[in-house]
């Protein structure tokens, strides 16, 4: 049994004291930032990126991944207790979680979301374990043209399937690609868009870009929006007794959790979609199949458990394309990819074969992390409820300080602080104009890779662009990408014909 041997290797790696410690730090911090509104996993992962330069790649990834799935556990806490989602993917948890809390069933809601998260997470890991090696084998057959086509599809999907305007999503990806061009061209050594600034010869620092766009910009936008009083007064006391769900809660949740997991696992593994879309889908599906849809929005337990399972299953299966093909599905995965590249590990089909300790160690750490999260979120839920009472006015100077020191520490250079400030201002303006920064980050990280694959593909085909149509893998990716674009164009034309006076972006993401 090769799988068992691999898992044994994985657990051996994950149970080393260092990795165990970093896994704990990761899920702990993840839950912490997941619980707190106004700081997300993207900002946290970018803040901690500099710390991971000093540890081996496996340890670094174990911690960063822990932050990601830990945040998707914690996100629903504030949603249930305060009607304020701690993370975008937890927005759905407000719909039925908050009504449950108002009925005095906050404890049950918190308990059931943790169980649902655990179920979704565990099944997600099983899918990851079973499918990744297979997908990696398929990935070995990919040539440069296929990679280019796949990245193109991933970027278009990420840009068009956001909650905002698809045209704005595409333009953000393109701007990200442009920013990724800055620095030294790997093939010719030419300096591009550096304007003689020596600090730019390696390109924009990923840490500065991510911290600026997601950390600084978020703080500017949140300072006066997050009301402190509310969290201090509204948070109820959660006792163990109040957490015990009734038999009916279990019965009502079993099937929705299974369906939610399926939906989440699917959307998580697809490039461009992720936990947020999955959780909204799961909620919509439950409402459709429910015998009494009118219960939804008034504290139906399955309205909380199905999206939670979906969102956590997606958080695990999102690693499938990232680890096996080197194609990140969303901005967080793009950061993980960036962290791997910085650590000198090339993600892709060879990762599973050449660095089994990294791949399987990471998979095993997901199991450990999920069990830790179960402990962190049920017996220790009281701590997180207390955390919600930390006022934002105390939190944000600390966040800014850690951003400044963190970005400095990457190159020990003040230049990067100016850079983080620049990207912070840019990110805030983008937020105001309703452009989402996440596709920009995805484009920034994939830009250099895409260019390299494009150049290699064209060199191999002796300058014949039809190579993208002749290879079946690349042709099918491009076909799907074209369908997505046509769908966007259709929507755009229809919108113009109607000339509705409504604003172009009805739903803002976060």
């Amino acid at each position, binding site marked *: 049994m090769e799988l068992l041997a691999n898992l044994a290797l994985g657990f051996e790696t994950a149970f080393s004291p260092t990795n165990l410690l970093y896994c704990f730090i990761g899920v702990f911090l993840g839950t912490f930032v997941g619980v707190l509104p106004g700081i997300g996993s993207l900002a946290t992962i970018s803040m901690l990126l500099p710390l991971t330069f000093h540890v081996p790649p496996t340890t670094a990834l174990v911690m960063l991944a822990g932050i990601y799935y830990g945040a998707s556990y914690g996100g629903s806490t504030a949603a249930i207790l305060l009607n304020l989602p701690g993370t975008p993917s937890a927005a759905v948890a407000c719909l039925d979680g908050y009504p449950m809390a108002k009925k005095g069933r906050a404890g049950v809601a918190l308990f059931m979301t943790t169980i649902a998260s655990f179920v979704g997470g565990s099944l997600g890991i099983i899918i990851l374990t079973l499918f990744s090696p297979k997908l990696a084998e398929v990935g070995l057959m990919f040539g440069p043209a296929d990679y280019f086509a796949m990245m193109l599809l991933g970027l278009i999907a990420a840009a068009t399937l956001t909650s905002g305007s698809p045209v*704005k999503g595409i333009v953000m990806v393109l701007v990200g690609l442009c920013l990724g061009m800055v620095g030294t061209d790997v093939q010719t050594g030419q300096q591009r868009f550096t304007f003689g600034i020596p600090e730019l010869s390696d390109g924009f620092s990923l840490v500065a870009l991510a911290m600026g766009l997601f950390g600084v910009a978020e703080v500017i936008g949140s300072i006066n929006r997050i009301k402190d009083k509310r969290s201090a007064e509204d948070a109820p006391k959660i006792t163990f007794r109040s957490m015990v769900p009734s038999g009916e809660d279990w019965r009502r949740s079993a099937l929705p959790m299974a369906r939610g997991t399926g939906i989440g696992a699917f959307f998580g593994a697809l490039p461009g979609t992720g936990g947020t879309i999955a959780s909204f889908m799961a909620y919509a599906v439950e409402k459709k199949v429910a015998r009494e849809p009118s219960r939804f929005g008034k504290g139906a337990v399955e309205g909380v458990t199905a999206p939670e399972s979906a969102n956590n299953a997606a958080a695990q299966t999102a690693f499938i394309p990232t680890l096996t093909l080197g194609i990140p599905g969303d901005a967080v995965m793009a950061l993980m990819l960036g962290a791997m590249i910085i650590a000198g590990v090339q993600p892709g089909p060879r990762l599973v074969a050449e660095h089994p300790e990294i791949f399987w160690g990471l998979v095993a750490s997901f199991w450990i992390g999920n069990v830790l999260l179960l402990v962190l979120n049920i017996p220790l839920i009281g701590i997180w409820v207390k955390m919600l009472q930390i006022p934002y006015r105390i939190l944000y100077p600390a966040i*800014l300080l850690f951003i400044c020191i963190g970005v400095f520490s990457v190159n020990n250079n003040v230049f990067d602080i100016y850079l983080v400030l620049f990207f912070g201002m840019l990110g805030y303006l983008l937020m105001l104009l309703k452009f989402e920064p996440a596709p920009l980050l995805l484009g920034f990280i994939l830009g250099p890779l895409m260019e390299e694959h494009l150049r290699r593909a064209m060199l191999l085909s002796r300058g014949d662009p039809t190579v993208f149509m002749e290879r079946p893998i690349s042709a099918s990716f491009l076909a799907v990408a074209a369908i997505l674009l046509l769908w966007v164009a259709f929507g755009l034309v229809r919108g113009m014909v109607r000339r509705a006076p409504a604003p172009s972006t009805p739903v803002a993401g976060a």
Partner: protein
Amino acid sequence: MTTSRDYMDMLGGAVLTVFGLWFMLHAFGEYNIGELRRMGPGFFPAVLGGLVAGFGALIFLPALFRAGTRVQFDTRPFLAIVAGILAFAFVVEPFGLVAATAVLVGITAMGRVAIRPVEIAIMAVCLAAIAVLVFSWGLGIPLHPFRWNF
């Protein structure tokens, strides 16, 4: 608040179009484009710039013909945070981490309407202590706690 045209998207689209054109022209002018078979360093950026300009126009043009909403610019938090980070960057090398933390906390705290001087002072002291303990001593980041050279 609504406006007769969608000025926000007009602004965003226009800036993007100008940026894209500039990016494309710069790539054309400064770097070798090469040929399809052997692309030069200018090829990919030139294409990208053109695409940005095109999509920028796609955002700008429809915005001319529809009403929009005015957004609220958080002037005070924006200025406070920009000034705070700038001050940190200026102060941290000549004066050290403690002074830089103090100015960062002091200035960024002005971003809120209600200012509590005592709380800000306590926060600055605590955060400076944490920063020195964790980053200067714990992680060995070369930032001196105190310094006095220009």
